[in-house]
């Protein structure tokens, strides 16, 4: 008979071995699915590896896919660690993009040396709008105890409609109405050239957004592990009553964490505009599901900021390979299926970290007073 017992201690190596192990299991399962549907798994994986990492320019393309995931992954991690389930990173990213493109257009055409100004302004504007969008569910949660999962989710749709409206159904500031073609086929105004964010490196091209993301990850790690803010977050996330007992201001924390989470997601939107699209592109943003994938990234990374960086690159590679290889030969939907399987395996693996399996009846235990017996023996 197999029984599950809660572990008393969690050895650190388990936190690494299990996610890695679940990745391996996931790929194995996927291989079976591929084989069953007539695709050679080895060939498919090799193609994916090449398209995602090893091929010419592949890793650079992967970083392009990874950058938004880095931001939305961090956004999710920030909130989920305090048991605040912010599903709204998707919409917060859109709002960030709106803010970033607005300020870039406002600043107008300046000379090339003023790029840092653009970068700074876009990040600030994006962060603010993303934070504000996240504060809506935040306020509702803090003051009306409304479940933030549904509210943040609903706002994703509203945000999507908003950006669609701005480009497709209005003559808004963001819309390009300068040419006849632009009027017939709606698109956003192009950013000033100086507003395009720089890239680094030659054979391996690193977008500025990715570097900003790494910096944000480091800052978040510092915040959560070395400051009073982070201490309070860990207590509130574990036991809101204990937090109240200790005099912590839970409501303020909820607002702060939601704003932080939304702000980081918003930065992802700024990066989309500044690094890649140079214009507000509702169709592209909505088709990519950055926000939801970010949650997957955060969960796989067990909400650790540095792990998020690694996982974002991995999943970015997967994403990239999926786009590159898309065609008659390569199965569509593979990316989602694989991501799903990876996540399922990771969730299952989580069990092994928290619990230990005992087979049979013998259990070596200490006899003296052991773990607390609550409520009462």
């Amino acid at each position, binding site marked *: 008979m197999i*029984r599950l017992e*809660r572990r008393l201690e969690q050895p650190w190596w388990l936190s690494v071995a299990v996610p890695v192990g679940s990745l391996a299991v996931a790929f194995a399962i996927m291989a079976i699915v591929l084989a069953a*549907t007539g695709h050679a798994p080895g060939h498919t994986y090799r193609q994916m590896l090449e398209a995602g990492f090893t091929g010419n320019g592949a890793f650079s393309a992967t970083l392009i896919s990874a950058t938004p995931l880095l931001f939305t992954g961090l956004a999710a991690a920030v909130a989920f660690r305090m048991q605040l*389930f912010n*599903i709204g990173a998707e919409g917060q990213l859109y709002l960030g993009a709106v803010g970033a493109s607005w300020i870039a257009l406002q600043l107008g055409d300046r000379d090339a040396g003023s790029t840092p100004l653009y970068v700074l302004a876009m990040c600030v504007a994006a962060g603010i709008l993303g934070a504000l969008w996240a504060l809506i569910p935040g306020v*509702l949660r803090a003051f*009306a*105890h*409304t*479940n933030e*999962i*549904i*509210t943040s*989710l*609903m*706002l994703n*749709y*509203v945000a999507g*409609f*908003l950006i*669609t*409206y701005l480009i497709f*159904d*209005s003559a808004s500031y963001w819309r390009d109405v300068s040419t006849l073609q632009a009027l017939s086929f709606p698109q956003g105004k192009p950013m000033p050239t100086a507003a395009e964010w720089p890239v680094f490196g030659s054979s391996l091209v690193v977008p500025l957004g990715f570097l900003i993301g790494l910096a944000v990850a480091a800052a978040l790690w510092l915040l959560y592990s070395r400051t009073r803010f982070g201490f309070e977050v860990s207590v509130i996330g574990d036991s809101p009553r204990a937090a109240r007992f200790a005099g912590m201001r839970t409501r303020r924390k909820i607002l702060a964490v939601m704003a932080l989470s939304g702000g980081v997601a918003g930065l992802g939107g700024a990066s989309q505009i500044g690094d890649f699209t140079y214009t507000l592109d509702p169709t592209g943003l909505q088709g990519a*599901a950055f926000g*939801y*994938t970010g*949650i*997957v990234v955060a*969960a796989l990374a067990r909400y650790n900021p540095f792990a998020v960086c690694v996982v974002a690159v991995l999943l970015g590679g997967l994403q990239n390979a999926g786009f590159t290889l898309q065609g008659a030969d390569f*199965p*569509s*939907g*593979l*990316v*989602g*299926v694989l*991501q*799903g*399987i990876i*996540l*399922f395996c990771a*969730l*299952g693996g*989580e*069990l092994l970290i928290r*619990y230990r399996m005992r087979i049979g009846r013998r259990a070596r235990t200490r006899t003296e007073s052991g*773990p*607390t*017996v*609550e409520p009462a023996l």
Partner: protein
Amino acid sequence: MSINDSLLVIVLAQAVLYGTPILFAALGELLAERSGVLNLGVEGMMLFGAAVGYWATQRVHGPSATVLLLAVLVAAFSGAAMAAIHAFLTITLRASQIVSGLALTIFAGGLGLSAYFGSELHLADLPAAHQLGSLDVLGLADFPVVGPILFDQSALVYGSWALTALVALYLSRTRWGLNVRAVGEAPASADAMGINVTLYRYTHVLAGGALAGVGGACYSLSITPSWVSGDTLVNGAGWIAIALVIFAFWRPELCLLGAYLFGALSALPFALQARDVTIAPELLYSLPYVMTIVVLVVVSTGFAKRRLGAPAALGIPYVREER
């Protein structure tokens, strides 16, 4: 112009049409949540059900009614299969219900299994072989006002009414329904009374998946009817269904009303456009979502919570021997 061509009647008739998939999915999610398990994968299950149902109509040959019935059943089965993954992860392996549900949406959704399935079988290229058309019930389809709304709908719609009544009676009047209510409120007490918590949770989550599959089939077999890759076929109806359950205080009768309300709001933009009324369509599209937020806020504030609240054990894995 007869009254049946008026905006009101058209919108209401469409409301019923568009509301039905949401109703199916919501009733399913309601059952799952009543047993204490939150399943956020509704959208994914609906998409997969839509794909599988469509495939069934392409592959099975026979009289239309039989094929369609079979297709619906197959769609239900596929939804349940998806839900089984979530059930296993959250009930047996005690994983986080939220993450697991989201994973299911990604796995089964528009960029996942339903797309995989659809593209492997080239479903997008196939025209609809069978379609669930409207049934003219009792010949009253043209009756003023209520005719088009109540008597000119597809079999799925009428099925959904029967289902609503069934679920309502199940929960309030049967032994099993009483047991599942206890499981969702206080699994420890239910367990002590000899109720098999695990079994009830599994069955209700699977039932939830089955109904979500049927909801998805509504689109590919009735409303659209065809199959397209990606999310647009269902377009967020799964998420609305989740919200609807809360909106309806976990009561089936209110799910019916709420589903039609949402359906009306989805139908309104088209109808208005047809009359050259220029309101930005996005504004109307956003209405259901904003309304859900508003209603949620109202439901969450204190008073309502105790009397109209969620099953108390919703979202928490049940562990019997944990100390």
